[in-house]
């Protein structure tokens, strides 16, 4: 029995030695990780700046202000509608269709706004059709289509559609 006890002590001593060696190695790795972390932060900053310049280039190249149209989707505050999908038509042409994951729906419910469509239209009068499908808090299926008229001038046009279980509202920004 005494031998067994000695063995436990020897085991614990060996483990303690192993532990202290690993602690020293940990400190060295931690330093290396910190150093790399600083460099990763730097490169993230550079890439973000490239992304911003690229976004400006894309906007200028693909959506010149004279024809630029962007449509945004928001949920009405405190509305209990569980949105499943949104479909957008402009002048009778389907231009955007979005099916919402739980994460996306949650992002909208927290006040986020989704840019569902960016494109080009000519200056003048246009029609937009918004169709939404979802479920009401009662569990009943819900579907609604609304038509909106809007006028496109020479400046970029931003349209915000606020979705709710009682109405869809078009806001002009």
């Amino acid at each position: 029995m005494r031998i067994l006890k000695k063995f436990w002590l020897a085991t614990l001593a060996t483990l303690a030695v192993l532990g202290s060696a690993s602690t020293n190695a940990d400190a060295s790795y931690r330093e290396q990780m910190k150093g790399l972390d600083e460099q990763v932060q730097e490169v993230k900053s550079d890439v973000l700046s490239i992304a911003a310049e690229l976004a400006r280039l894309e906007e200028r190249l693909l959506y010149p202000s004279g024809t630029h149209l962007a449509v945004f989707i928001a949920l009405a505050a405190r509305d209990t509608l569980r949105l499943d999908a949104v479909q957008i038509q402009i002048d009778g042409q389907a231009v955007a269709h979005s099916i919402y994951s739980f994460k996306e729906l949650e992002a909208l419910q927290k006040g986020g706004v989704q840019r569902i469509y960016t494109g080009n239209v000519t200056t003048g009068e246009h029609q937009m059709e918004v169709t939404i499908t979802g479920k009401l808090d009662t569990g009943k299926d819900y579907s609604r289509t609304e038509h909106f008229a809007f006028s496109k001038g020479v400046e970029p046009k931003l349209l915000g559609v606020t979705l709710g279980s009682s109405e869809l509202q078009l806001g002009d920004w």
Partner: protein
Amino acid sequence: MLRATLIVGFGVASVLAASPCESRDLRDLYFGEALYQANQGHYFEALERLDAELALHNNLDEPQRDSLQFHIGEAEFSVGDFELYYRMHRRAGRAIKAVLEGAVDEAVRNEAAYRLARIHFQKDQAADALQALDRISGKVPVAIRDDVEFLRANVYMALGRPEEAAAVLKRLQGAQSLTGFAAYNLGIAMLQEGHEQDAVAQLDKAGQLSLSGPGPLAIRDKSNMLLGKLMLESTDFTRAQQFFDRVRLDGPFSNQALLSSGWADVSAQNFERAVVPWSMLAKREVTDAAVQEALLALPYAYSKLNVHGRAAVLYSEALKSFGQELTKVDASVKSIAEGRFLKALVREEIQQDKGWAIRLRTLPDAPETYYLMQLMASNDFQTALQNYLDLDELRKKMAGWQTNLDAYEDMIRLRRKNYEPLLPGIDAQFRELDAQIRLRMEQRNHLQQRLHQLLIEPRPDLLATADERIVMEHLRAIEQSLEKTKGADKPQLEERLRHLKGVVTWTLYTTYPQRLTEAHEHLNALNADIAVLNKQYQEFVRARQAAEHSYLGYDDTIKRLRTRAAESLETVNKLMAQQGHLIETVAIEELKSRRARLEVYQTQARYAVADSYDRAAKAQGNDPSPAAAQGTSTGGGQ
């Protein structure tokens, strides 16, 4: 030793972490879009959007007329928050400092100071954190009031000023959002102060709080674990046992609690009781270090109870298990060395799941993760893993950008090819039309001036019709002819001429107001046509400009972006390789350390098996065979 390591227990990231942004009554759609991205955890996209919006806003001549103005404070804070979430602490610090140094009201300044302090604290810069907290004065938003004080207490503790920490924490004991955390930290502060009795009483309170939610429940377990260890240190085994028993059996400290509970029993020479927690623990996931220790500890307890047969069997099982685990560890090391661990990390389906580290373990072709769960839970390793994933995401983005830039260049080439031959002809045609338009515009302006003059100084002759002008010309010619005539009928002809001139003049004078009105109506109609013409003219100019702008002026930008993206991609690849290598090295080191531990256990088990069989054989007679030992164990284990 125990106390020195306890201090690290007070960092409560879940309490300090800010909640994702929320904004109602939105006035700026692009700010809303940044929130939408951030709410989904897409912080790169959120930052990209918000950086662009803020740059645009700050470059405006009249930023107060911009829709972002309604959210400017929130937007500036959000940038810092998003950067923090995207693990860009340095930039986040700069962003928040900018808010702090701007002309903002007291509440906003205080919130900025709090956020800055939080960043410093997370980066182990306690003195800087305290300096930031000291800038808080006056009105502090209610939502962060308790968090500010909690952070202050944690900073005091990190700076080795437990008395001040305890004073702050005492005031926070009623704070709902900090229940459990404030109680535990107060206990730690008291321990740091050297007030052991008070600390034990405080931790005892923290260990019995009625709480809900994984965070608070875990901190309650931690309080009880700590108390148990303190009691073990002071050889109060009965109380230690009580505290370990309070730890939940399904919480993160459960295995450690069962193991320690058994050791508390053994220390109290109560081997029979030690068998209970260790038996339970020995059946759990064998990769856990506590479980492996229990595999040895359980037969040890049986041997102390003189149930050598049972001990021998359990030592045999442990030996077998350690052998299997060593094989598993070796497979893990091999798998990591072959790069499979990093490949498993960057899988899309893993990153989509918040609990990906756990799910990683269940992947059949990722055996390397069996022994890494504890390592993966550490902050440094998590940061390294997250950095690796972020770099991988950046690499994918930049690869996509290169493709996009190729497409843009092609698009520009096609536009140039289409427009360049057309534009000279269009321009020539336009110049002709432009000259005509200018001429007509001059005529219109002249007409307008004359009509305006007629209102001041009436001139009916100017409104004569073409026929009337011809008639008047005729009459003038007749008059000139008559002047040269000397016939007898001259007076009669002159009389007739006068009569005719009178008729024309009468008509011109009597219809003058009507003619003037009509002339104005015609001018208005002309103005309407000119407005249409101007609109078309402007549209043409814009279309002409747009045609040119669709392919001119992009070359330098694209070239610059290509160079920058290529340079960054090179850096990203280099960093990713370094980060990946470091992750693999640390993981392999961890596995090697677990391997060394397993080898120690294996050696002990091997010796103990033989020893136990000997003892079992001695107890039964003189047959030291395993079969004989089995027979003993059946009886002994009951």
